[in-house]
């Protein structure tokens, strides 16, 4: 029987690989494949085959003392992951198969154990791929690639078996009348007991905990090293340390020493899983159905439906039946984006930002905490400007699967485009204004001596004016890309995987960055001109707001032209070609 399952697995992988190679005939995949391949080479393989340089330097840092610390830290991370797997899940054991596998394998004369073996076999594909990827990433830090690969494989294989075993154990407990909450309480009691033992030992054996001692990273590291490598914790973490030890082995001999216990743990987990006699079929059918729904949603471009079941959400405001129709799309997309974008929430955030800035100003006095936090807020603001569009997709990208319905609406194409962009633009602007208040609030007092509060006020005003327009422009770029290259866009988000798809995403990202820079040039030029002129004539305080107004006018014209262009693109967007693509 297992040979049939092996046949299925082998041919599924083979056919999928052949299909991916064949689709390289299409330019969109070929170009994506080349770019993705180059990225992989430059980022990963160059260090694998070329001069290690930085990697060896990093390897030197792994002294025996550090290794013991890393081993304990790794074990602690694994413990956290395993605890989460025991505490949070509430469903009965379910092995996720595809709908085809359910249809063919469940009615077939295959034992439950056979199905488990098939599942374990199939999960090895994902484990091996993850192992390869992580080996490429971690190999940049130095060490031997094969040791890292084997180490990662052991860690993921044991974790996989443990997750499966814990789900079986959970089901068995439920069958015996032990509810999820009873199980959770039991596990949490055990965790508290372990924590109490460690804390009691630390209080008795370690010097008293004084925050003033932890001014530098070395002091923190020393303290962590003592807690993790002495007392009860190393014993409590011992089985998990055995799991991470092969990965951290500095040489082949150490790896071989570490391999035996880790393999024994792997076999023990395997025995646990295959000996568990738990009925998983019913829950598996349901899980498979949900998986199929997710896949269908992703292929249709509906990521929201794929991520979670939509919940009923309150309208952000009452939509009147008459008025600008674009507002209907804003209203719809705000509901789609969730209740998080209600006016009340933004007012609350703004008040919170003001209070936090003032409060920190009072508390930190002259310390460097406020500028540091201000810098973090400023960076987050810039980051949200550049990357935020990838997270807030309540626009054409979300509605593309319903493009045929949108096209039946009696709206001008620019109205549709504007309506589609408004919700993510409003949400992003809200986030950035919140961060802006924090930035200005945090820098205001600390840097007042250098710039003066009128300058900070002007800066805040100018940024607040420019931000929504920048958001509107940045949102137009991925939307235009989705309408211009629907086949690429669908391929990139249609659940497809592989280097070529990664390459497509890279091309999109770079294209977006380039288009954004080009859009900024005229506004930046005018800003600079007005700024220097006004600064010379009036002074710094007026220079920033006036230059910002000038830049905002340019950006507004660009945004308006962009909306018209986007509308034109949507008008020309051939739904039939898109679905065929």
């Amino acid at each position, binding site marked *: 029987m297992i040979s049939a399952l092996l046949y299925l697995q082998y041919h599924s992988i083979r056919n999928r690989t052949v299909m991916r190679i064949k689709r390289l005939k299409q330019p969109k995949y070929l170009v994506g494949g080349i770019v993705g391949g180059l990225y992989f080479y430059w980022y990963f393989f160059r260090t694998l085959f070329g001069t290690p340089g930085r990697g060896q330097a990093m390897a030197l840092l792994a002294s025996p003392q550090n290794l013991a610390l890393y081993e304990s830290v790794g074990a602690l991370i694994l413990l956290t992951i395993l605890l989460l797997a025991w505490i949070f899940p509430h469903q009965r054991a379910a092995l996720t198969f595809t709908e085809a596998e359910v249809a063919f394998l469940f009615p077939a004369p295959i034992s439950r154990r056979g199905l488990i073996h098939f599942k374990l076999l199939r999960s090895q594909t994902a484990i091996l791929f993850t192992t390869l990827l992580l080996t490429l990433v971690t190999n940049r830090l130095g060490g031997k690639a094969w040791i890292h690969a084997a180490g990662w494989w052991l860690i993921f294989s044991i974790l996989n078996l443990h997750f499966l075993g814990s789900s079986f154990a959970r089901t068995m407990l439920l069958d015996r009348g032990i509810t999820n909450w009873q199980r959770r309480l039991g596990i949490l009691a055990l965790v508290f007991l372990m924590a109490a033992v460690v804390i009691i030992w630390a209080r008795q054996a370690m010097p008293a905990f004084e925050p003033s001692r932890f001014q530098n990273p070395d002091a923190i590291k020393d303290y962590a090293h003592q807690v993790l490598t002495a007392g009860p914790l190393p014993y409590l973490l011992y089985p998990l340390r055995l799991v991470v030890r092969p990965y951290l082995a500095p040489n082949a001999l150490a790896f071989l020493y570490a391999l035996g216990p880790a393999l024994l743990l792997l076999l023990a987990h395997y025995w646990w899983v295959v000996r568990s006699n738990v009925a998983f079929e019913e829950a598996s059918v349901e899980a498979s159905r949900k998986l199929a729904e997710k896949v269908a949603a992703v292929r249709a471009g*509906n990521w*929201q*439906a794929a991520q979670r*079941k*939509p*919940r*009923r*959400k309150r*309208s952000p405001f009452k*939509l*009147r*039946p*008459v*008025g600008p*129709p674009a*507002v*209907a799309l804003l*209203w*719809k997309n705000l*509901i*789609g984006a969730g209740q998080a974008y209600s006016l009340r929430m933004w007012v609350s955030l703004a008040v919170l930002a003001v209070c936090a800035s003032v409060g920190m100003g009072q508390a930190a006095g002259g310390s460097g905490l406020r500028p540091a936090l201000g810098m973090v807020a400023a960076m987050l603001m810039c980051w949200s400007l550049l990357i935020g569009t990838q997270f807030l997709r309540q626009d054409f990208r979300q509605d593309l699967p*319903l493009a*045929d*319905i949108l*096209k*039946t*609406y*009696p*709206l*001008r194409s620019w109205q549709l485009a504007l309506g589609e962009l408004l919700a993510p633009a409003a949400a992003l602007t809200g986030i950035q204004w919140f961060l802006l208040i924090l930035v200005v609030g945090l820098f205001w007092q600390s840097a007042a001596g250098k710039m003066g509060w009128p300058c900070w006020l002007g800066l805040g005003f100018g940024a607040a004016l420019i931000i929504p327009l920048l958001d509107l422009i940045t949102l137009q770029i991925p939307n235009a890309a989705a309408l211009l290259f629907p086949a690429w866009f669908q391929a990139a988000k249609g659940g497809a995987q592989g280097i070529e798809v990664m390459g497509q995403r890279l091309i999109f990202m770079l294209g977006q960055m380039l288009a954004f820079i080009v859009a900024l040039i005229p506004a930046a030029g005018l800003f600079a001109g007005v700024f220097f002129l006004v600064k010379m004539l009036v002074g710094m305080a007026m220079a920033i707001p006036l230059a910002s107004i000038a830049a905002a006018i340019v950006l507004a014209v660009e945004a308006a032209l962009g909306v018209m262009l986007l509308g034109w693109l949507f008008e*020309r967007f*051939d*739904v*039939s*070609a898109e679905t*065929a693509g």
Partner: protein
Amino acid sequence: MAKLPDDDRLRRRCQFQTSGFAFAADWETHPLALGLLRMIQVEALTKLYGEFVAVNELGFEVKPSEVMGLVGPNGAGKTTTLRCLSGIIPPTRGNIRICGHDLGQDPIAAKRELAFFPDEPRLFDYLTVEQHLAFVARIYQVKDYEPVADQLLEELEIAGKRNALPGELSRGMKQKLAIACGLLHAPRVIYFDEPLTGLDPIGIRRMKDSILKRAREGTAIIISSHLLHLVEEICSHILILKDGRKIAHGTLAEITREFAAQAGETNLEEVFFRATSEAGKAQQ
């Protein structure tokens, strides 16, 4: 020249729709009246996908209260035709007029008059039934839509599901919601693509009744379906497409006369097979 049908209700409707215009003595030839009499006018509609001809030089008219069945084998171009007629995809060539408005030149006015119901109800996953109606009301600027929406929800028996999301509705209910949304702005032209798919027997009966009711009220309707008995039952006119070409158009009686092998053969299924077969093409 179009002649006004002997239907007082229809005449009143034409007069109402054109209030504000003083008809000339020969009002039967007035362009606006003609537009109203020919709710859907299609001339030389052609749609190409690359070199593939999906619809080829198609022309027809649908008048108020007419229900036209669009039938044909798979790949005949039925859905493409409906998509062109509703403004979803642009035709490669040809003209489409909806209630006198050119769909290419004045799409907004044309789209205000029509509703398209695809074979699968297309709804927003995150909007409730009530929110769908509010959204559509704003899009179509339907002032005081609430009583109309309430009536539609009652009529379609989904009034109890006002706060439900599409994911919480059965397929039939989703279709009812799509219909409620489509009818909210009182369209004068309606297209149905396989309207009975997924409906239970009661739903099928109600759908047929609803279509006929709208037709009686003067709406021009096109139904694309493979269910020939449905087409035969509720359509006043039939258009048979094959490979994007019109191979027959007229009332059932006219088409039967054209394709029937022997006197008395009035079964649309037989006529359809004959019309779409090689013999039918030769007869053309």
